[in-house]
């Protein structure tokens, strides 16, 4: 995967809480057998009236020409529900490298990281200020720096900055373009040895 380090961009705001993966990519689009092309159906039912691409919902952020960029900004508990990785594929394929929220669902967070789409967890206050800033000035530049784990943007006459958490292991992976699977494959011998000293009768 392509490493990520620093992303500077405007943000696309969806100020709704508990956005579940069924909204991010509805189940009827999960029939593909490849990972490509999910971006065009991202938020399908919030984006279009009656599932028709000719009738976009004007009030939805993805259809609002004021909002563009590589950073999706969303309400608390983003990505809850189904484990479908298609949600992370759709977000990445659409062009987002970062999702900012004050809370992420567990499985989505893993899926996003495995696809080098960085989930940035910020405080409720920071998120509120970010939504306000984008609302007042859609051209607000947001900078996410993975190395220093800092996110900042220019609020009303002041730079608003916050540090975000990420596991040191995952950070190394993202900065260097390493996948978990590469690491696990390098451990095959240890895994086989582990199986031989089977600690429970369940382990075959």
């Amino acid at each position, binding site marked *: 995967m392509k490493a990520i380090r620093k992303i500077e961009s405007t943000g696309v705001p969806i*100020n709704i809480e508990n956005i579940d993966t069924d909204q991010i990519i509805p189940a*009827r689009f999960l029939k593909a057998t490849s990972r490509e092309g999910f971006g065009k159906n991202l938020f399908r039912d919030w984006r279009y009236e009656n599932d028709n691409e000719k009738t976009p919902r004007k009030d939805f952020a993805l259809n609002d020409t004021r909002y563009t960029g590589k950073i999706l900004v969303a309400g608390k508990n983003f990505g809850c529900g189904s484990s479908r*990785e298609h949600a992370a594929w759709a977000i990445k394929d659409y062009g987002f490298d970062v999702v900012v929220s004050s809370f992420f669902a567990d499985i989505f967070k893993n899926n996003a990281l495995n696809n080098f789409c960085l989930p940035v967890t910020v405080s409720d206050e920071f998120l509120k200020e970010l939504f306000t800033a984008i609302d007042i000035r859609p051209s607000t530049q947001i900078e996410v720096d993975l190395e220093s784990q800092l996110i900042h943007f220019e609020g009303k006459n002041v730079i608003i900055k916050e540090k975000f958490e990420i596991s040191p292991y995952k950070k190394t992976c993202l900065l260097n373009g390493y996948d978990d699977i590469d690491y696990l*494959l390098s*451990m095959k011998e240890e*895994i086989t040895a582990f199986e031989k000293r089977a600690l429970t009768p369940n382990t075959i």
Partner: protein
Amino acid sequence: MKPKTLFEKIWETHVVKTIEDGPAVLYIDKHFIHEVTSPQAFKGLEQRGLPVFRPEQIVATADHNVPTENQHLPIKEALSRLQVDTLDKNCKKFGIELYGLGHPYQGIVHVIGPEMGFTQPGMTIVCGDSHTSTHGAFGTIAFGIGTSEVEMVMATQCLMQTKPRLMRINVEGKLHHGVLSKDIILYIISKISASGATGYAVEYAGSAIRNLSMEARMTVCNMSIEMGARCGMIAPDETTFKYMRGRKYVPRGDSWNSSLTYWKTLFTDDGAEFDAELNIDASEIEPMITYGTNPGMGIGISGHVPNLRDLEENEKHSFEKSLQYMGLEPGMGIKGKKIDYIFIGSCTNSRIEDLRLVADFVKGKQKAKDVEVWIVPGSKQVEKQAHEEGIDKIFEAAGFILRQPGCSACLGMNEDKIPAGKYCISTSNRNFEGRQGPNARTFLASPLTAAAAAITGRVTDVRELI
């Protein structure tokens, strides 16, 4: 020795290695796969030129996409057919046992796992499906994963996992007549919200949980993900062992005895510590129903939708959006609301016990004129049992339709969709916007509450009919 929780006992025996400042490499005993979240994982293996490391530890079935009528005919919808065929091809190629469409053991992955005896206490179990938490009812660490992780487990039988925090939820006391395990879990989620257990592994304990059957325990664990939990689990006991004994893949003879000795060590020691603990009085729970578009938006059947003034400022916008979608008003009662569809099925409530409960209740009754009732058994085995016990005849007489096994209208990936704007009482696990079909409106409830609505055509307190 330091007292340990059930979770810790299982976790510690499955850690191959812990990375400094990082996750653990966790060994996975059993991997369930299905047609929707596996094709890209197989493709990944092919691109890397890798075999499946331990094919004998994988069990495959087709469930999400399959039709629930005329399963003997080729699947009509081309993309669904391709996905099911792709699973078939991949399983053959990589040497994985498949319980595909038409197989006597086919069914919803979380129904067939326990039913066939694949699910056993003390295991680590994963599947590319968030309701994998179901298997925790047997005292396992079982959780849903994404497709990249499916590929990792196929390639190495391991996953990188951060140890979650631990929460215990104690449900003590006696349930009221007409209140089922589905009501317990909907009640818990309504109390702690759709994100209240995120980052936690949850153990359910207490007398009300101990008194549940295995089917009922599976319903509770199944919905752990709906409050964000990594997994849900219940310590195995005599109820568990009795359910398991004699099932096809459960050990027999001496091997049963040695397994049993081990399984009996799987409980939380006195004095073991949890990061969070919640106590629930079972007698406070009434039949539950959801009113909104996440499973945390639930109320007792006699209750009312919250008023805006009772909410935090930041919650109001999402709440209003949700009610608008549902066509409901703040402060209103749900009881008496007209219903169009009833769906009894899904990995939450499609087991034989669910069907028996519904059959007992509807025997001699007729469905309301304007409702359509779909009963979708969780597996071929459940379907067979329903026929053997004459449950199918009771349903037929009541005007219910007993379909064939699959995930069906829980997520509407096949033809079983609720039409736009229509109200459905569903025994499934999610009331998200569009979950049961674009613009479909879902009320989540127990099989009994669903059955009561099938008879009256309205949201009904089942306690008034039994």
